[in-house]
């Protein structure tokens, strides 16, 4: 009797599992959900990307389902956290494709995790919308791969254009050693010449460094210095900004879109005053003129996100919003989740208004954004201001 007693929980558990499976099969037969898969760097060094992305996807899938789903079917979201590790991202992509049988994949928070997933999605022929920055993701164009964020090359171009306007030519570069930083640094070096910019110093710092005065002291001593550009994310740029003021460097400081969140101003405090950076309209939603086509979209997203999560919106969550909505839009137009049809529908997206800008995709452009999507912002009185 002892044995039977001990086995009772196990047998009842098995019974429950069986019942659930039968039930599940019944529901599935009635109405197959649209399966959306996602690999995000929710934890680890790139969690500042993955965390708002995850929150955004979860919130909007919930909303869409509450509103009856898409083409009469519910959405089913599966998110795996790759921790920023490319190897894990590859395995999770495989899992999404083979085990979870998803219809479309949104994600890849970082360039590394995206690149690791690309061979698999190309092979499996599944629409894939990356949320990572590097231009290499969509150049050359890969049939099944799209992305929503502006490229790091565009960020460089926006910054250099602004510098050119202010007649700043001799520029020092300081960047982190992470993938985002290194990729942007490389793109900036590539396009600098086109804007007549001369890179007079090129320094780097580690992701967890606590003091960048040594690098900035070297930059400060560079003859003819007119501006400094910091490519990076996380606490690094905040420390750079503070050390910048500590050393009394007076030339303009530019940050990248990697710190495009109110949190940057909060952490850097007074030191952030006067810092310029390129960012999507989302960051300055309320400041946009009412004529701006993006205004309605970004104000709504900002309101929803901040109300639900009680934390400042970042442009990265916006990229996930755009990725999800592009997919939903394409599925509606395709009228099914047939992978080839959805892919074609995504590629034919025209005039879609997202948080990142107005998206016009084509067979030769799998990003669909131009430089106008970026706004140049400046920190003034502890808040963002549009540079006219």
């Amino acid at each position, binding site marked *: 009797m002892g044995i039977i007693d001990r086995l009772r929980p196990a047998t009842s558990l098995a019974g429950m599992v069986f019942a659930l499976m039968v039930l599940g099969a019944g529901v599935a037969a009635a109405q197959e959900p649209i399966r959306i898969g996602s690999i995000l760097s*929710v*934890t*680890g*060094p790139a*969690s*500042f990307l993955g*965390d708002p992305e995850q929150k955004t996807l979860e919130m909007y899938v919930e909303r869409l389902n509450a509103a009856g789903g898409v083409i009469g079917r519910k959405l089913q979201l599966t998110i795996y956290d790759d921790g920023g590790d490319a190897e894990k991202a590859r395995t999770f992509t495989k899992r999404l494709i083979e085990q979870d049988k998803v219809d479309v994949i949104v994600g890849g928070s970082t360039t590394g995790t995206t690149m690791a997933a690309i061979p698999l999605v190309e092979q499996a022929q599944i629409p894939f919308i990356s949320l990572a920055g590097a231009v290499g993701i969509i150049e050359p164009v890969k049939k099944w791969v799209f992305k929503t964020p502006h490229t790091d090359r565009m960020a460089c171009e926006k910054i250099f254009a602004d510098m050119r306007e202010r007649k700043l030519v001799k520029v020092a570069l300081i960047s982190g*050693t992470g993938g985002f930083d290194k990729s942007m640094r490389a793109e900036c070096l590539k396009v600098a010449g086109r804007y007549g910019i001369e890179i007079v110093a090129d*320094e*780097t*710092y*580690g*992701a*967890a*460094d*606590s*003091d*960048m*005065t*040594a*690098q900035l*002291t*070297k930059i400060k*001593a560079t003859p003819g210095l007119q501006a400094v550009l910091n490519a990076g994310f*996380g*606490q690094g740029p*905040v*420390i750079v900004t*503070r050390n910048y003021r*500590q*050393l*009394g460097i007076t030339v303009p400081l530019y940050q990248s879109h990697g710190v495009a969140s109110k*949190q940057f101003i*909060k*952490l850097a*405090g*007074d*030191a952030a005053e006067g810092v310029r950076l390129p960012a999507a309209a989302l960051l300055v939603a309320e400041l946009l003129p009412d004529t701006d086509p993006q205004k309605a979209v970004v104000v709504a997203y900002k309101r929803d996100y901040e109300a639900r999560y009680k*934390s400042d919106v970042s442009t990265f969550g916006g990229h996930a919003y755009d990725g999800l909505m592009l997919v939903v839009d394409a599925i509606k137009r395709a009228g099914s989740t047939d992978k080839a049809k959805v892919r074609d529908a995504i590629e034919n997206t025209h005039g879609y208004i997202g948080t990142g800008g107005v998206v016009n995709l084509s067979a030769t452009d799998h990003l669909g954004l131009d430089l106008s999507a970026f706004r140049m912002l400046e920190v003034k009185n502890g808040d963002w201001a549009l540079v006219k």
Partner: protein
Amino acid sequence: MSAESLQFVAGGLTTGAIYALVALGFSIIFNASGVINFAQGEFVMIGGMSAATLFASGMALPVAIACAVGAAGIVGLMLAKFAVGRARRADVVTLIIITIGASMLLRGLAQIVWDKRIHALPSLSGHRPVELFGATILPQSLWVLAVTIAVVAMLSWFFGQTRLGKAMLATSYNRLAAELVGIDVRIVLLASFGLAAVLGAIAGVLIAPITFVSYDSGVMLGLKGFAAAILGGLGSFPGAVVGGLTLGLLESLAAGYLSSAYKDVIAFVVMLAVLLVMPGGILGARTSARV
């Protein structure tokens, strides 16, 4: 010395003082148990995160700091009591893996209890840099340096004068002998983890205004603190300070004079060279083989 090189030194001292403070925690636990506590960085994180969130919720800064240090101390005691203490007879490597598990657990809990964002804490005395011979240093860095020195002095007093301190020291020299003269080794273990956690939390509170704090900021601090403790000589408190400052200066000078991209490589290569010449660290014990 030019103002430029003085600035490199100032930057190195800022970083080095942080490493030194973390390294001291490693040495305390090593002395009492022979274990490298890979969760030491998490103690630092818990101190910083608790203080930052308590302060943000409206608590007065001194109270928030006291609560944070207390919370970390309790976590340290629990780690010793429920995990490391239960596996006392296990191999040292096994104990180290337990602390690795603990660091994952603490990091995992931190991201649930708090969040994954970066938090800041106000400096104890403002952001206005102090100028010395053309080089500038943040007042908070001076706080870190001063507290590090004060902590070393207090540890020397504790281990040299108090009953518990002497018991802990005796245990580090010879466990069996310490047990034979009636020292309760479990109490020593508890005390060492509690002390190391409190110290780590103090470090976290002091560092947060400079480097900020997030749920995973303990990983890198732990790694560098371990490196500093080894470089100075594991188990030696002055060694931890010397190791920390040396490592910080190495990084800063390498970034200033050689290459900021390879500054960590340079620092590690120099460290390996030092270890090969002095296999027990800069101020470590010299031992010879005995049969």
